[in-house]
């Protein structure tokens, strides 16, 4: 009997507590920096596309919503000819970001992607590619990878040893 009255009193006191509701459109929720939302494709510090079209993200995606076509420019850099994410299927699991070897594909804290037309949820490369380095500033894949492109020979990357001359016997 006493506990009934007590619980009613305690519930009544909740009238004067702080509200937990976030009045959304006027008041934005504070999203953590690593919140998994809209997907972007980032760029190198020197504004080259980071994505090398390796298909790892498309393979990792559990709902198969990424499709792309790799190609190569005249300097030897690989890049996707098209890159398409169907956000009406994406479950924002972040596996694509984990799979990506070049930090190209990243999930950012933004969820306001509502559309009236389902087709508008299919984002093309120009919708995805941003002029920023995203969460990994300073990272440049071709500067650390052993792959030769125009303007960078084999062995010229950071921390990379000179290539072994297989025709010489000197160690």
């Amino acid at each position: 009997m006493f506990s009934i009255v007590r619980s009613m009193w305690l519930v009544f006191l909740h009238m004067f507590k702080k509200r937990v509701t976030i009045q959304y459109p006027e008041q934005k929720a504070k999203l953590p920096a690593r919140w998994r939302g809209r997907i972007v494709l980032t760029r190198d510090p020197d504004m080259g596309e980071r994505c090398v079209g390796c298909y790892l993200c498309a393979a990792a995606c559990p709902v198969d919503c990424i499709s792309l076509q790799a190609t190569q420019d005249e300097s030897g850099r690989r890049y996707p000819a098209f890159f398409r994410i169907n956000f009406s299927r994406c479950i924002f699991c972040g596996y694509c970001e984990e799979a990506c070897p070049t930090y190209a594909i990243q999930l950012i804290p933004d969820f306001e992607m509502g559309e009236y037309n389902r087709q508008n949820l299919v984002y093309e490369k120009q919708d995805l590619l941003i002029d920023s380095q995203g969460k990994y500033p300073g990272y440049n894949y071709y500067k650390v990878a052993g792959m030769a492109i125009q303007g960078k020979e084999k062995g010229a990357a950071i921390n990379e040893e000179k290539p072994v001359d297989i025709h010489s016997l000197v160690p």
Partner: protein
Amino acid sequence: MDDATISHLLITFGVLAGLLLVAPGLIWLERRLLALWQDRYGPNRAGPFGLLVVLADTLKLFFKEDWIPPFADKKVFVLAPAIVVITVLLSFVVIPFAPGIIVADMNIGLLFFLAMSSMGAYSIILGGWSSNNKYALLGSMRGAAQLISYEVFMGLSLMGVVLMTGSFSLIDIVEAQRYQWFIVPQFLGFVIFLIAGIAETHRLPFDIPEAESELIAGFHSEYSGMKFGLFFVGEYIGIMLISSMVTVLFLGGWYGPSFLPPLAWFIIKMFGFIFFFILLRASLPRPRYDQLMEFGWKILLPLSLLNLVVTGGIILWMNTH
């Protein structure tokens, strides 16, 4: 038509319109208050303070498919929701809101109220029965048992008030409380009537006939659209009815300090109890079915009998001395 007829008609339609306007408003009130007690805001977007949510709710109910299950007993199925609204509205006939503001002053007002609230049980029983659905039937069986048992204590708990007044007329009962509200001498009766009243309107925590977590929606599982809406309107008017009855019987009806008009006092007291009902809903869990029955028959019945016997004894003693 003479003046008396016109004013009587005005009062009748005023009461009817007032009830039918306030009942949907209670939906808003309940949602806002529940939200308040759960650290939320509740509906606050549509219109000032979210009041237009009532309109949206009603429109939504009207546009829902009005479905009668093919396996239902059609005539009874359609009739059942109307019964609850009709009986609670009829009960309001005898409630004196203020001096002169009453639809019909019957000398058996209290009995009329009890009769009407028993009739309300038919809506639950018939609604559940005609739905031909096992959950609905279970709900209506529970509802019937609950309403019939709590009816007993409800009637008994009021007899103390009747003994002290010597009349079944609600106006006489209010006037007998001019100097002292019956809540003081009849505190036990007040508590029992309040509990029985909650059970009578099958509001939480005594919403055992509906019990969402066990019976989907109990006796109105199969109802949709405005038929479902009628059950709700009936429930909300029922809350107002029990609140007004408590006010009339135990809190001195329209009496109060004279800086406010009598009607205002009545409405303030009534809304106080509506708040209390909603607070109950916000804070207490639903008892098990057998606990409810046990509580009724083993605690409330002896207590109400005791109340009756003691009140009667004291009145007898006072009359003979």
